[in-house]
């Protein structure tokens, strides 16, 4: 009897001992580690060639990607749509919209203004053919770049503004010098020429930063188109002024009759109550 118990003891302790590494692994699987994985076989994982945003010891400032040399332009700065991309990119929708056939048109599209007697004159209307697709594109871009501060409805109360307002009520110094973004449906923006809105997106205004590096030229115009759409949505048009196909359906006879009956009943009951 003693022997069997003896074997059982040895067997179970060996079993537990074998289980221990597996348990340690199971714990480690759910932990975060500040060091990358241990690679025993390097397999050319890290090669000395340069990838985007990698460090390079060739330059004193360790930047592998070199900044622009003063006084030069990258090819894409010229205008953000280059021909090769227009044809190859599956998602390029701009090709059918933008026609740059004159210097004036080029200035209009790129700067949102035309030079007249050495003075910039804002373009009155978007110099690009506006289609529903174009406005949809504008909505997508607006929600990405403008929505966080101006709000998806353009009223100037996006989530960032709400967060800063909350910080301010808490008395946090992080609220800083934040000012509430402009209401894009307000008259100040409504009576701005399209070119000027484009200019504000491009170069910024007051506390708002310039977005020319983040948003390509045509997308900026798409955003202008969508801002106009938001303004229209903010000031509803009476149904009678809409084109025929967009009008809401007229109430049918039966519904109208029920409604008037109801009113008569209500009137009758109120008369009864008076009596």
């Amino acid at each position, binding site marked *: 009897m003693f022997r069997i118990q003896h074997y059982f003891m040895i067997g179970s302790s060996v079993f537990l001992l074998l289980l221990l590494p597996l348990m340690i*692994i199971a714990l480690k699987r759910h932990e*975060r580690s500040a060091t990358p994985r241990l690679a025993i076989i390097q397999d*050319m994982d890290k090669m000395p*060639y340069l990838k*985007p945003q990698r460090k390079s010891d060739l330059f004193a400032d360790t930047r592998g990607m070199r900044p622009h040399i003063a006084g030069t332009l990258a090819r894409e700065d010229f205008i953000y749509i280059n021909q090769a991309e227009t044809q190859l990119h599956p998602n390029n929708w701009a090709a059918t919209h933008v026609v740059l056939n004159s210097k004036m048109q080029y200035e209009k599209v790129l700067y949102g203004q035309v030079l007249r007697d050495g003075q910039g004159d804002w373009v009155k209307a978007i110099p690009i053919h506006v289609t529903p697709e174009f406005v949809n594109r504008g909505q997508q871009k607006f*929600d990405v770049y403008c929505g966080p501060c101006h709000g998806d409805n353009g009223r100037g109360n996006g989530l960032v503004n709400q*967060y800063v307002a909350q910080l301010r009520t808490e008395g946090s110094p992080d609220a800083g*010098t934040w000012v509430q973004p402009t209401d894009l449906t307000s008259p100040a923006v409504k009576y701005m020429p399209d070119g000027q809105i484009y200019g504000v997106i491009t170069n910024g205004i007051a506390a708002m930063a310039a977005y020319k*590096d983040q948003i390509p030229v045509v997308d900026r115009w798409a955003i202008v188109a969508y801002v106009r759409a938001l303004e229209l949505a903010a000031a509803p048009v009476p149904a009678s002024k809409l084109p025929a196909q967009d009008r809401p359906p007229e109430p049918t006879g039966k519904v109208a009759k029920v409604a008037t009956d109801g009113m008569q009943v209500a009137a009758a009951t109120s008369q009864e109550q008076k009596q």
Partner: protein
Amino acid sequence: MSEKPPFVFPKWINKATLGLLATLAIAPVYLIILLGYGANARTLNVGFSPKQPVPFSHALHAGKLGINCYYCHTDVMRAAFAALPPTQTCLNCHAEIAPKSKELEPVRDSDGLGPASKAGLPVPWIKVNDEPDYVYFNHAAHINAGVSCLTCHGRVNEMTQVYQAKPLNMAWCLACHRNPGPNLRPRNEVTNLNWNPNNKVQLARDLGLKESQLPKNLGKYLVKKYKIASTKLLTDCQTCHH
């Protein structure tokens, strides 16, 4: 000269042999389990979460404030590399919000608001989701095919400090390349990490269809719509190694 006594195994050898045989039988099985569990990509790769020079919280920016991925990673639809934004992008807001925060000092220094010697120098971020250098991964190709950020990066909008959420090893890549359908969604929902495929109204709007026209198998429909290459091409060596 006495004769040498013949060698006799001691009695305990009987028991030891039994133990030895048992060890020989169990050891290989145990080692295979140990290596398979301990050295697989899920165990080794997932959970890498280095401390960054600026404690940027995706949970706050992308989660609570709802800032779209594209706001900072602007070129990801057009470029192979999902570039980190220039510090100028941070200062779009942080010139006003938390303008004196100590944690944001490297950002301000880089943008030229600090000492002149540090102006223009990059913030030394540490890359978290990193493929080996012999793998060619193209972000634009995946995003335009309707593969969400979520598929490879996990719930970044809930990460206070970014960690690697998926193993990103070859077997894992190939699992999707063999059958991409289940991981596809409409292109304009790619950065929406809370996308709900069962929301028929939204789905119809995304695809430009009526609700009654919605495809039964969304994956199959999107593979066709976005012209996803055949499995033969997607699993070819030179698709990712060239």
